[in-house]
């Protein structure tokens, strides 16, 4: 980076330190950046079970590839400095009285500003409706980043309570199930809410995380792309069994899903009648102090 090279101008005649640091840094980049992208990269979670988790995986790889040169620059610089500029022996000698260089400072500020703006733009693009539909994150009741024809997405209400996830299907007679089975290659709209305290619905392999907040309808979109199972966990501290609020979901074919939901409607017929009418939020009694 030019900042390092330019530093020698203010420092005096010895220009070789800067050049050496630059060369070491360049060599290190040539070695490590490809390693991060192609060797480490494929192993960075959350893999590719859905369009959203694939996006997040790509973002993580890109961020890692960008972070590596920065990390290497600081490490190389500090490593070089503490090796070469070390004062051996007991005597104490003062170094050259350099009090700063505005050109380097401005260059550094400009460089970091450019990087930051680029990162912010990149992150925002990752949220755009067309590409990722909010990247699997909870977006509240009125999501801005929607997939194409969001209205036809499969609606699933995710209900958190202490300490259980249940799932309600407004498109299938409002039946409620204790398991989550999803059709592959179809847009899903999760409506996450809670009956008591705050939880966070984390479908790890799907790349979905949305807080379940009482009184709030938190919408998150996902499009699964693989036939496989996925872990569901709670990612917000919710009391005693927070760490046990796990279950396993399945991504299946559309026909298998249709069979499963039809069976569930029959099986939970009796209890479905007792459920309150489908709503985005619930305020179940006893809402105040029970007794």
């Amino acid at each position, binding site marked *: 980076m030019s*900042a*390092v090279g330019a530093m020698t101008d203010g420092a*005096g005649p*010895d220009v070789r330190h800067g050049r050496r640091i630059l060369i070491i840094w360049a060599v290190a980049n040539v070695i490590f950046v490809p390693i991060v992208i192609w060797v480490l990269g494929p192993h960075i979670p*959350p893999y590719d079970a859905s369009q959203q*988790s694939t996006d*997040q995986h790509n*973002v*993580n790889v890109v961020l890692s590839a960008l972070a590596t040169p*920065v990390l290497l620059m*600081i*490490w190389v610089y*500090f490593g070089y*400095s*503490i090796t070469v500029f070390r*004062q051996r022996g007991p005597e*104490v000698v*003062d*170094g*050259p*009285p*350099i*009090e*700063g*260089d505005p050109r380097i*400072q401005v260059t*550094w500020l400009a460089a970091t500003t450019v990087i*930051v703006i680029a*990162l912010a733009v990149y*992150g925002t693009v*990752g*949220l755009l409706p067309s590409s*990722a539909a*909010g990247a699997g*994150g*909870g*977006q*509240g*009741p009125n999501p*801005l980043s929607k997939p194409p024809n969001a209205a036809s997405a499969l609606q699933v209400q995710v209900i958190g309570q202490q300490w259980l996830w249940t799932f309600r299907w407004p498109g299938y007679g409002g039946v409620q199930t204790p398991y989550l089975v999803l059709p592959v290659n179809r847009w899903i709209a999760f409506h996450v809410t809670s009956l008591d*305290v705050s939880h*966070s619905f*984390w479908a790890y392999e799907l*790349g979905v*995380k*949305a807080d379940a907040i*009482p*009184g*709030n309808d938190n*919408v998150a979109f996902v499009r699964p792309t693989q036939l496989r199972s996925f872990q569901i966990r*709670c*990612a917000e*501290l919710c*009391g*005693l*069994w*927070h*760490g046990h609020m796990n279950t396993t979901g399945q991504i299946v074919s559309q026909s298998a899903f249709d069979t499963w939901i039809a069976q569930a409607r029959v099986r939970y017929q009796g209890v479905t009648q007792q459920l309150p009418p489908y709503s985005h939020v619930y*305020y179940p009694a006893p809402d*105040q102090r029970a007794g």
Partner: protein
Amino acid sequence: MSTTESPPPTAITKAPRFREQLIGFHLLWGVVLAALGYFVCHWLGTKIGNHIKGQTATDQDDIAVLLGFLGATLGWLIGLGFFNYPLSRMMGRPASLIEGEEYGVWRYFRLCTDHKVVAVQYFVAVLFFFGVGGLNAMLIRGELTSDNATFIQAGNYLTLVSLHGTMMLMMMSAGVLGPLGNYLVPLMIGARRMAFPRVESLTLWLTVLAGFMLISAIFLGGFPTGWTGYAPLSVEARAGMDAYLFSFALIGISLCLVGLNIIATVMTMRAPGLYWNRIPVFVWGMVTTSVLAVLAAPVLFAALYMAALDRTVETTFFLASNGGSPFLWYNLFWFFGHPEVYILALPGFGIVLEILPVFARKPLWGYRVAVAGMFGVALLSFMVWQHHLFVSGINANLRPFYMFTTELISIPTGIIFLIGMGTLWRARIRFTVPMLFCLAFFFNFLIGGLSGVYLSDVPSNVTTHGSYFVMAHFHYTIMGGLVFATIGGFYYWLPKITGFKLNETLGKIHFWMMFIFFNLTFFPLFAAGLLGMPRRVSSYNPSLHGLNVFVSISAWCLGLSLLVFLANIVWTQLLLREPAGPNPWLSKSLEWQLPSPVPSYNFERIPVINSAPYSYGIPDAPPVADFGTPARLPGGPAITPEGGVL
């Protein structure tokens, strides 16, 4: 509130005898009256609670518990003598600024207005509570050697995690402002005292009380919420929650007053010649931290107060079913919580940048940019709090804005790295123990900062939010950053505070153990988070078992390294007691020009400052300050460097 005259600091007279000491205002009576106050007010609270029966949120009589804590606080402060002065002022007696400085060793157990005594009290208190919080961490790692709760029950595990988090956050916020800030700010700016010496002592004793109150939560059934105290989980929790609310509120008050005191001191009490551009960068670190403390802590206080009302008189601030909203807590808490994160970072910047020039034997590279960077961090930290809520479903449309402001913080933080790099350029580096800790600060904070970029990026945040990735990230910034810098600072300044050397060899053993095992402990946790391990769980996916066992073993070794630190302190400061001399590091800073330990009046005469304390290598630099000439002619004083009263 009011003082008008200030008698000159008096020399210490002969301390009263032990028996005479027993009657009076000090720690013993503080403890006795605090216990008495708790039980009296608890009894009273039970009566009130019965009177409005059906209006208590839980059967744990929260009204009685909270009133008990209030009574304990009052009793504690009465016993320590904090009400004597206000009462005498209410009687119309004249103001004074000196109290308890003449009591010899007993100064350390009572209200004392000497800023150096308060700093030592702070040092002991913070070390003690840091030890308690650290042992909690050891127990946590013990439990996590198994993928299912075995050795500690799930509920107790949550209490343990909550205690660890809250204790560390509480004590580390005070960890630099208290001991080093109170000790060094007056010395570095050439003052004899802090602006409000009694308030300074008050903040200390409130911190001590708050620490013990927090520990008392385990006798009240614990609390399950972690340090974030999320409502409405906090509303339904047992009475241990009241201990969290009350002790955190006391810390909020204490933090706010510490900040107020430091800002007022720096604004009005600088020695002549100490212009704004000559103030040591450590003092700037304290000032920027104080700005955050003064403005953020009150919001925490208000939020905790609302939660306490929800639990006692059945208001509904945080209950969605009754016209409140959990988001209200999230916003208020994180409006405090994010500046709090920088309250835990800026002191580290200050310490590191102060120590670096001494051992690089070079002037600080880019002093003005460094100060601007600190202010930049302080200001930006008020504008980023919703990045803690990226997936919560609040204001999803503002996510790009908060992503941008969050990433903006890396610009002023990057400046700190630039300053460090510039200062090391062609330096004459000496690897003393404080210097090693400073260099480790840059290593750790870099990893912490870069992992923050993942968290600030919304798509990546969806996976990492609420996972061990976050936990590893903030341990890298707080423990790897602040704690490393603070320990470096203690190695650097302890010889000044006590007058005795620390052992270099033990110090280096401590450093290398701590550095290696810190990284072995927390780096694998980034992977644990990415692989799907949520925070604050006592049971996890069995596939992560090996990783967690490895981390636990590293964590215990990390704990052992701190025992080396403790042994070093006990051995060299209490047993060996080898005099350090006034300036063992050959520093040019003002405090090192004074004898070690510093006499009670600090400066015989207020010095006249000639330059910033970083003039290393400048051939004919004048001494940093002129101690000989009388700073003020009788009747013609200059209070601020600019020569006027503010």
